[in-house]
């Protein structure tokens, strides 16, 4: 059984989908009964998503894309 400390230590890996299926199962057993860890987990997940969308607005300039297309024949 994971306690809060076990759970918090694995939160990075949980949000990054790097835990093995048995570990995921085990951590969810804890999350199901621990509101504080669940909140923490959702927050970390939200932060990761925020980082992703914040950056994905950045696109390569069209001129660069065109040059590379010609260079690569794509």
């Amino acid at each position, binding site marked *: 059984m994971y306690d809060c400390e076990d759970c918090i230590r694995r939160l*990075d890996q949980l949000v*990054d989908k790097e835990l093995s299926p048995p570990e995921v199962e085990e951590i969810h057993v804890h999350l199901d009964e621990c509101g504080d860890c669940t909140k923490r987990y959702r*927050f970390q997940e939200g932060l*990761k998503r925020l980082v992703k969308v914040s950056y994905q*607005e950045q696109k390569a300039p069209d001129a660069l894309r065109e040059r590379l297309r010609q260079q690569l*024949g*794509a």
Partner: protein
Amino acid sequence: MAEQTVEEQDFGTEAIGNLDALYRGALRLTRDPDKAQDLVQDTYARALRYQHSYQAGTNMKAWLFAIMRNLYWDRFQKANREAVSIDDIGEFALYDQMRDDLGEGPETEVLDRIARGEVVDAIEKLSPLHREVVLLVDVEGFSYKDAATVLGVPIGTVMSRLHRARQQLQKDLFEYAVESGIVPGGLNKRS
């Protein structure tokens, strides 16, 4: 121009499909749009030259990032490659700080009120080694294993850098959240 084989065409199409990701990566490394464009262009030129060493079906994005990173360090950072140190930022988490200040953990909705530009700024302030791991894992969706390959470090190093980077990020965003009134925390500690 010589006729292209189907393989070469597929290679080109798949490579171009990773352009936005590579450009973002180049911007993070160089912090300069012109240099970023040059770096991306050189990366594609090298990729084309070493096309035969790419194994179809493997992670092309990781392969291109590895090429780009090597080019960058060779060209721009040779002198201080070894000099980059990871500063010890100490244990700090936005979540814990807010919980202490607010009496309970922040709702995830707090994140909705943080401007995207602030997030980008906070990531820009990270050290280069921290910044690139956040970019690879959080923005581009690399597995720890692929990130470790690109960065040439053990998986444990990817994990510890990522953890540190996230803590630093939370620290900066917390300061922003307090200053902009998104969370009322920290007031009792001032004046």
